[in-house]
């Protein structure tokens, strides 16, 4: 449990891997290096893709609603880009409820449906400007609301009347502006999140901020596995003795439930890979465990179906909580991980 032990283990690991030509850190990883590795390897490029996809989606809706397939393609690209970064709670995404605005889910009270119905039924055009959308219920501001506009239960043909088209346009425009804000707040010179993490000036305060950043990012990674196993895989396939309930799964209307899980796991694997230089053994093990879970998901084997994927994700979660953080000298505690 002690830092000394984990350092010794790491030194042993480094000695073992030295033959492979991997860079050997002289001492315990600096929390700042951990935060930078994840930021540069996963978060910043992920937000760049997300902003581009949201911009394209807005452009698609601005073309009008004649070509539903084009709007669906834009939605799916945006949803793909979001699935690659949705687990991130650190930094600008946590301001102004941006994460919930982009994807309000789970939604057990059907707030998205209710909010959308209210918008559709509203007597005038008020509420349809992007800036007005941003002040309504967060449940109607994001991808789940667009999905409901674009997909009908049972796969029926979708007709987007002027009203629905205007709502979609407003939502897509609001999403684009959220994406641009997040990217800008990460990449602004000097004041941006990345610049702050890159700054090497050390004071007690910046050291605390670096540690806080690393802790949050590793917590985000561990939470990704909990969400994927418990909220996403469980309803889709039914585990722990419960029957499947596909309509409780994420994005079932657009048939994305499986795909989102895949993309979340790919994001987890990318995060693990970004840390291999800092914790060679544990980060590699995590990447391997995620790959195992992906294989299990693809084969959908096991008895009952889905259990192998569920179990695989739980094994990865164990490594992400118990092994990797300690190897990086940023241990996640029982209380800090999931407190109340």
């Amino acid at each position, binding site marked *: 449990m002690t830092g000394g032990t984990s350092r010794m283990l790491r030194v042993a690991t480094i000695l073992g891997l030295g033959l492979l030509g991997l860079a050997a850190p002289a001492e315990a990883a600096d929390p700042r290096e951990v935060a930078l590795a994840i930021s540069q390897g996963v978060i910043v490029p992920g937000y760049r893709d997300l902003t581009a996809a949201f911009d394209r989606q807005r452009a698609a809706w601005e073309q009008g609603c004649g070509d539903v397939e084009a709007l669906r393609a834009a939605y799916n690209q945006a949803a793909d880009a979001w699935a690659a970064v949705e687990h991130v709670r650190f930094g600008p995404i946590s301001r102004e409820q941006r994460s919930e605005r982009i994807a309000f889910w789970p939604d057990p*009270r059907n*707030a998205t449906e209710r909010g959308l119905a209210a918008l559709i039924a509203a007597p005038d055009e008020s509420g349809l400007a992007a800036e007005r959308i941003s002040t309504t219920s967060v449940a109607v501001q994001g991808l789940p609301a667009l999905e409901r506009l674009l997909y009908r239960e049972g796969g029926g043909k979708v007709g987007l009347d002027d009203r629905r088209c205007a709502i979609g346009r407003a939502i897509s425009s609001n999403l684009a502006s959220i994406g641009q804000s997040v990217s800008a707040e990460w990449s602004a010179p000097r004041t941006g999140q990345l610049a702050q993490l890159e700054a090497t000036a050390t004071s007690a305060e910046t050291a605390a901020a670096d540690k806080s950043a690393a802790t949050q990012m590793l917590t985000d990674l561990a939470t990704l596995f909990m969400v994927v196993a418990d909220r996403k895989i469980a309803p889709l396939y039914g585990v722990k003795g419960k029957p499947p309930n596909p309509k409780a799964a994420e994005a079932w209307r657009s048939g994305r439930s499986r795909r989102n899980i895949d993309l979340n796991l790919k994001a987890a694997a990318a995060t693990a890979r970004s840390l291999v230089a800092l914790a060679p053994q544990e980060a590699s093990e995590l990447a391997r465990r995620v790959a195992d879970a992906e294989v299990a998901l693809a084969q959908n084997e096991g008895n009952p179906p889905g259990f192998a994927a569920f179990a695989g994700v739980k094994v990865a979660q164990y490594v992400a909580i118990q092994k990797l953080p300690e190897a990086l000298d940023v*241990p996640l*505690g*029982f209380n*800090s991980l999931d*407190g109340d």
Partner: protein
Amino acid sequence: MAMTRRRVLALLGSTATVLAQARALVAEPFAGSMSSGGLDLGDDTCFAAFADKLSPDFGVGPVADGTDACWANIVETRLHGGAVRPRSHELVVVARRPGSCFLVIDARSGGLLRSVEASPGRHFYGHAVFSADGCWLFTTEADYEAGVGLIGVYDVTRGYSRTAEWASGGVGPHELVLTQDGGGLWVANGGVDTHPDGGRAMLNEGTLQSTLVRLDLSGKLAASYDLGPDLDTLSIRHIAVTPDGALVFGCQDQADVAAARPLVGVVSAAGRCEIVEAGRSVWPALNGYVGSVAVDSQGKYLAATSPRGNQVLFQAVAGGEQTSLIALQDVCGVAALSRPGAFLVTSGAGEIARVAVSAEGARITMRARANRRWDNHIIRASWGRAPI
């Protein structure tokens, strides 16, 4: 431990046995003995929920270093906070948010007296408090379809039957405590809306709107405080009263923790709600998260734990003296002990520490370790030293 588990399962399977035991115990005088292992808690006895380090089991037991064969109830549900009934050995522990039950346990033996399920359409938030006479239990609950916070009112003398529910004056009520005079309740409405089908996910469609509310014992709203627009991302979760009637509260920032917003405040006995003045480096060190608060027996010092900052903050309630931080990995549970300035803290790493706070600062005076991951809260018995 296996013995304990079998006993619990057997009791759970037999309502008749549970009821018989419950009747027998209500009338029984306080007797027996319990060792607190390697850590002397002085004149106090404390309990806490925990997770077993070696398995995914959860439980509740006395806070002790684990070398003794202290009772421990192992259950499948992760437990959270609770209370010991005044002048009794009934320990109530509530399942964590969104919880479906609370357990009534014999604090001498660990025997399960009763398991009370949430009413239809309701879930628990993890905390409970008894009235001063021990006749009523109050719990924080949600009407989860409506997304409305409630206080559940249970008649202890009639087998913990639920006799009423009151509006909590907000969303997501979390910890509740008795007012100093026992004539009312303080409720921390954390503002976080949850639904059992959404697990622990936050379902708010707008901003948090966390409030601190005082109710009288008929459920009527007596006072309500919020932290204003600058601090509207803070969820007020944990509270403790001082002997002179002030209230200390601890918050969790639901937004960007890098903003290092202040996390601890006091509502004075006169009703002024103020954030604690602390040194510049204090709030960043707590990393946007306070997990528990306590006030020492004299009402002079407050303690606030941060498992995300791995620190405990100690500070004079009235301000003026220097702030102290003690570093402890994954620390969360905290309770005041009888001795002035004395606190007990527990951590997810199994650590148990006594801390003495004075004008010179805070220092750990004794520490031990249990093979358990202590969960968020310590429940202190009001009957003093443990002769369970």
